[in-house]
């Protein structure tokens, strides 16, 4: 279980099945002359189904680890330093494992080929597995949908192989335990995403949008790599666990030392001021670099072009999960490497380290626990994102372009949830991330059905299509209402929790008015977004039929309608009974903020 290669199956299996798809596709195209109907599709769907199963198994492995260690902690509340770990290592595999689970309270799994800090590390905790579940699950649904949607396209072998590699790379980003492994999988994900956006290369629009996405994505990736190189120069390692100890504690120690006020302290203050400029540069590069993939506003311009140009299944993947990978990487890098500010951390962050706080502030150091306040930068970007995307979405005539701006809007909500930085805010952000993946996947697949039937993406051409495609349109309406935040559906709970977490945080910081403003703007943006969401519902169900809609003679395809209906059902079920997803998001937020748990194990 510990250091087990099966942990990497969510990355290895899709790549294996991608190779299988390429082989079957060659057989299909060259040798059998197209006699193996649906062979590639079936292989791809089986591959993603098996991968989903493995993600589920790893989730339950983690869950049982947590239950075991919780019981042990309740029985014997002891603390043993992490250095003892090395003394147990020679005693054998099972003793090490028992030590990890029962004494260290391990609730993550690890695969490493070389001991850190030299090697590449995969570490799986609840956050990783939550993201991997979203990636693989939506990948499976999109793959089933594509069987019918892509039936008249050529080059489907490459399409399914690239889709599988996209899922594998995203799982790799989620499972990475050091910054460079994360970067490698991020680039692989980017390459397959650029190629899939430009998949229909015989038209001008996908090629141009794909090139634009590629240039912006490559510049963003180079910024991330620049930040990685500077972090490496500061600390000599890229392992998340080491970084979490190094920079955070260095700053805390220096802060505690400064409170003693002596000449050496003044000298150190100079060094800190000098060094902190580098931290600002690194944080800015990380936010902008990952922000390009996450499509936060100043660097969002590729998204409204790439989403309409891509095939609809790929739009659903891009909007549902690929941009979330940027959010995930940003959160992981920033929260673990640069822990954020908080006055009275023992009140605000009872659930987060440092646990040995009384010793850390021996002289009653009154100020901040950590000097990093990049969460205010996220607030700024989040608010700009909300305003710009709301305004731009109102102006759109193209349904997929409107949905693309709606994705940017929801990235703004997620960024504001993350910027609160408490367990409540981060778990609300990840809860909204999952809800948006479900609902926006649904909406893009629905837009794909409309495009398939009418051949047009203009909203005016779709008026009254609801009666021709009842299952899809009913699901589409449910997804729209869920993103709008109508109470019985899932989007309501996550938006409400983001607002509430900002309000709960406000009394604990001197900048409380900022958080009240954030809550207000979130509510207002959510209310304004009803304008374009309701327009979609109105046009599709209540408008007179347009000429293109009248010309539809085909019946709704069940292969395309079923994945959409499943997603709509998920919206309703998680709206009425949100606790499974919310408790998963809660555990994910704890895993992100409890990096002490993380580093004592990996080191």
């Amino acid at each position: 279980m510990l250091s087990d290669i099966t942990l990497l199956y969510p990355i290895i299996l899709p790549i294996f099945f991608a190779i299988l798809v390429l082989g079957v596709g060659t057989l299909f195209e060259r040798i059998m002359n197209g006699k193996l109907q649906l062979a590639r599709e079936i292989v791809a769907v089986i591959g993603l189904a098996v991968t989903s199963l493995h993600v589920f198994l790893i989730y339950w492995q983690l869950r049982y680890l947590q239950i075991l260690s919780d019981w042990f902690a309740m029985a014997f509340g002891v603390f043993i330093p992490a250095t003892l770990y090395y003394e147990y290592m020679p005693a054998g595999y099972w003793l090490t494992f028992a030590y990890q689970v029962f004494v260290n309270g391990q609730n993550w799994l690890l695969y490493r080929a070389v001991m850190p800090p030299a090697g590449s590390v995969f570490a799986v905790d609840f956050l990783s597995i939550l993201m991997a579940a979203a990636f693989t699950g939506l990948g499976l649904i999109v793959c089933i949908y594509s069987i019918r949607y892509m039936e008249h396209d050529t080059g489907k072998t490459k399409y399914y192989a690239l889709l599988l590699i996209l899922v594998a790379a995203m799982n790799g980003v989620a499972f990475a335990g050091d910054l460079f492994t994360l970067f490698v999988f991020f680039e692989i994900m980017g390459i397959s995403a650029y190629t899939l956006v430009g998949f229909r290369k015989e038209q001008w629009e996908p090629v141009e949008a794909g090139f634009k996405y590629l240039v912006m994505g490559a510049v963003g990736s180079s910024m991330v790599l620049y930040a990685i190189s500077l972090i490496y120069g500061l600390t000599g390692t890229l392992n998340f666990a080491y970084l979490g100890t190094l920079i955070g504690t260095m700053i805390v120690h220096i802060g505690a030392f400064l409170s003693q006020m002596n000449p050496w302290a003044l000298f150190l203050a100079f060094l800190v001021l000098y060094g902190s400029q580098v931290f600002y540069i690194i944080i800015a590069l990380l936010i902008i670099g990952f922000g390009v993939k996450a499509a936060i506003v100043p660097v969002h311009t590729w998204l409204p072009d790439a989403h309409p140009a891509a095939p609809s299944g790929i739009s659903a993947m891009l909007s549902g999960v690929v941009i979330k990978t940027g959010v995930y990487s940003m959160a992981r890098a920033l929260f673990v490497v640069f822990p954020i500010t908080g006055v009275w951390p023992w009140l605000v962050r009872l659930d987060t380290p440092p646990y040995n706080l009384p010793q850390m502030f021996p002289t009653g150091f009154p100020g901040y626990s950590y000097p990093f306040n990049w969460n205010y930068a996220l607030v700024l970007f989040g608010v700009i994102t909300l305003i710009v995307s709301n305004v731009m979405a109102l102006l759109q005539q193209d349904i997929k372009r409107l949905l693309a701006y709606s994705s940017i809007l929801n990235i703004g909500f997620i960024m504001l949830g993350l910027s609160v930085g408490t367990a409540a805010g981060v778990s609300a952000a990840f809860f909204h991330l999952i809800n948006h993946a479900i609902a926006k996947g649904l909406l893009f697949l629905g837009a794909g059905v409309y495009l398939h039937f009418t051949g047009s993406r203009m909203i005016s051409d779709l008026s009254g299509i609801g009666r021709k495609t009842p299952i899809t349109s009913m699901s589409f309406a449910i997804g729209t209402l869920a993103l709008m935040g109508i109470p019985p559906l899932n989007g309501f709970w996550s938006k409400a929790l983001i607002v509430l977490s900002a309000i709960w945080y406000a009394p604990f910081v001197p900048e409380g008015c900022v958080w009240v403003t954030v809550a207000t703007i979130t509510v207002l943006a959510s209310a304004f977004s009803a304008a374009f969401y309701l327009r979609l519902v109105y046009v599709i169900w209540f408008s007179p039929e347009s000429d293109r809609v009248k010309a539809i003679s085909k019946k709704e395809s069940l292969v395309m309608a079923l994945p959409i209906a499943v997603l709509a059902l998920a919206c309703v079920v998680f709206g009425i009974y949100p606790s499974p997803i919310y408790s998963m998001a809660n555990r994910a937020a704890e895993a992100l903020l409890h990096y002490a748990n993380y580093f004592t194990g990996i080191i």
Partner: protein
Amino acid sequence: MALPVSPGLYLGVAAILYGIGLYTVATKRNLIKIVIGVEILVNAVHLNLIALSAYRWALQWMQEVYTLLYNFGYTDPATLTLYGGLLVSTVQYNPLFVDPLAHSIVMTSIVLASCVTAVALAFVVALYRHYGTLDVQKMRRLKW
């Protein structure tokens, strides 16, 4: 033993190269030049990584800070137990030692960058087939 030269020269050159790359990507009209700009960006970062692998001044600085803290009585046993092993393993500074981690990173990153360039050039070929030109100004049908 020779004292290590400051890495500032290399870091400065890398920063200037990065600026040149950003300028190229932002202002050039030829698609091939934009792709070259992306390559310059990535290679500037590679230079930065290699320079930092040879001159780890920051590690030396950190070691001095920790020593200073220890000498001035910041000797909390719990903290030292937790982070002591870490300091011994990572903050040992030898000016003649070049860290291989950065080199493996740069080699992997070169492969990734060449993949991105290959995809970019494929896009350029497709764009040339559609428009018969490599000028960005003439193909801005999307709202750039």
